[in-house]
């Protein structure tokens, strides 16, 4: 573990440089430039707010637009980081075939690139907080840890997915579908509290309720989104009971995913 971290630290300049490249290239010839990075969560926020006015979702004491924006920020970060991470090795095939450096640099760079865009979105969040006159509390200091955890979740999927995608591009094609399904299984449009109320408090599914809730929270995004909203908007610490199942799952899968990636790495140049 320490060895891996050390190795990656040695390549920090490369990651920084490749991230810079990704961002520059993406927005270079766009008039709006990096503003595009925040337009998507903003647009989704507006759509969800519109939908909410028909459907009626209980957002508690927090105004719905800012609640859903705070959900979209980690979600979009996760979604983009995972998608880009999976495509990253194939996209850089010309480098893969000619120059060696640890291949996990590619997914890692894809993820860090999205981190920059996440940083830009947070200005919008701050502006929304000013608009709704919400003051951050000390719990906002949890944000870096929550984001680091999100990053690890993305990497877990991206490492495995990128390695498989080298041989079978099906992964890249299937991913958008799976991710959009996952979005509805995550508390993006609705707050986690609704699920919790139904399953844990009302025991809506009878004796299966607690099990169902654990399964629901196996999705790391459930805990991540809820905790992000907690620490930023509600002034509460993260809800660890909703985070634990996802964390355990990630802790098991990340090393396996990394191992698989390193095993496959040797053949990237041959089959890409």
């Amino acid at each position, binding site marked *: 573990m320490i060895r891996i971290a050390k190795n990656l630290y040695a390549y920090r300049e490369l990651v920084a440089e*490749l991230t810079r490249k990704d961002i520059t290239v993406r927005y270079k010839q766009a008039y709006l430039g990096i503003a595009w990075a925040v337009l998507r969560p903003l647009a989704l926020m507006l759509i969800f707010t519109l939908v909410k006015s028909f459907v009626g979702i209980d957002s508690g004491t927090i105004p719905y637009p800012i609640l859903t924006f705070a959900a979209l920020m980690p979600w979009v970060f996760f979604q983009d980081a995972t998608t880009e991470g999976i495509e990253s090795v194939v996209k850089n095939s010309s480098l893969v075939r000619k120059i*060696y450096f640890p291949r996990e640099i590619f997914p890692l760079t894809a993820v860090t690139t999205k981190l920059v865009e996440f940083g830009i979105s947070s200005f919008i969040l701050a502006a929304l907080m000013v608009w709704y006159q919400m003051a951050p509390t000390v719990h906002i200091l949890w944000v870096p840890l929550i984001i680091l955890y999100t990053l690890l979740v993305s990497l877990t999927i991206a490492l495995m997915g990128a390695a498989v995608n080298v041989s079978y591009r099906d992964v890249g094609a299937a991913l958008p579908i799976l991710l959009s399904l996952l979005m509805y299984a995550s508390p993006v449009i609705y707050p986690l509290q609704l699920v919790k109320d139904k399953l844990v408090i009302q025991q809506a599914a009878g004796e299966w309720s607690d099990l169902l809730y654990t399964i629901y929270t196996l999705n790391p995004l459930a805990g991540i989104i809820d905790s992000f909203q907690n620490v930023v908007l509600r002034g509460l610490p993260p809800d660890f009971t909703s985070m634990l199942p996802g964390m355990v799952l990630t802790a098991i899968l990340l090393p396996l995913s990394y191992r698989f990636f390193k095993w496959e790495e040797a053949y990237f140049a041959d089959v890409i």
Partner: protein
Amino acid sequence: MSIIEVNHVSKEYRLGTLTSLKDSAKNMVRRLRKQPVQKRIPFKALDDINFTITEGEVVGIIGNNGAGKSTLLKLLAHVTTPTTGNIAVHGKVAPLIEVGAGLVPDLTGRENVYLNATILGISRADIARKFDDIVSFSELEDFIDTPIKRYSSGMKIRLAFSIATSVDAEVLIIDEVLAVGDLAFQRKCFDRMEELIKGRGSTVLIVSHNIRQIERMCSRVLLLDHGEVAADGLPLDIADLFYRRSNEKINANHKKSLQGKVHKYSSGEIELLSVELLNEQGQPTDSLPSGGTLRVRVKFNVNQTLQRPEIVVGTHTTDFFYLSASSTALIEDRPDLEVGTHEVEYIVPSFPLVAGTYCVRFAIFDQHQRKVFTGETLKIFTILPTSMEIRDAPMRRLYLPTQWRLDGVPHSSPMPAPAEAAGS
């Protein structure tokens, strides 16, 4: 001390297309049921390669297309891993396998210098220090803040080469990148390479098809052939061997393509029996050395007596450029040809052509210049290169004994003993 060790390295690729998910699934089911699995034919790009390179050696790798040169470099650069065997490289490797890998069209020259140099493993501080040097070497000072998608291809290559050669590494791996850009820039590249090799004392591996360059720059040469190390030794010896082998291949190809191209015309009075090339001992042969004696023997039947006919024997190239021809018309007392079998020999004491494939032509005219028989490509023969051939100037057709006066001191160009037909 050895810096690169290659032990029993083989690399296999599977031929054919990538297996589909369906086929992979099918194979997996078969494997589980212990049924025979559908396999694709493996192709051995490298087959049990062994060698070690000591620090400071400059090693050239030569071989025909598909001999495994690039695969070997990729293995050394750690881009891919061997199927069996192992490779140990002690030290930092700078692979210049294909200059320009990783240049991003949308970024400016400056951004690309930073990006590409970082990819090649140069630290940011070092790049900043070397930046001016890189730019001035590439002669792109005026364009450095322009996106490189607007560069010409030559400009891109110049930039890439400048970045690539600014790497400090113990082992340099260079694949056919020496000649880039226009002639003046090629010269600069070449000087830069020599400086890298001689000045820094780094270990260098070069793959090139330019045998003369390899022969000049390297201290050792490996010849690869069909994935195996066919020869390993001093540059001149190996380059010569390779030259000879390629030559044989070219000649074989020429012969093959000429086989159907025998042009013959006969009025019926003459019937050609044989055309032979003879060596000094009078034995039939297919080749002679540059500057050696050309001796052609033609046998034919005469069906009708010809009075004072004119006999012409000559040579031409494979593309029917007539090289030499001599006629018996110059001989005043030439005899008549009676009915029966006759034999004519045409001897050139020193045939002054460079190595290659040549052909014999033969013609007979009667005393009124009427065509009785003409034939081209009647005999195909090769002229073998001399042992110093690769050192000699390349653009030439004739092989002539030469004398030199260098600052008034006479030097006779060594007329090296014609090499024996090696390997044939």
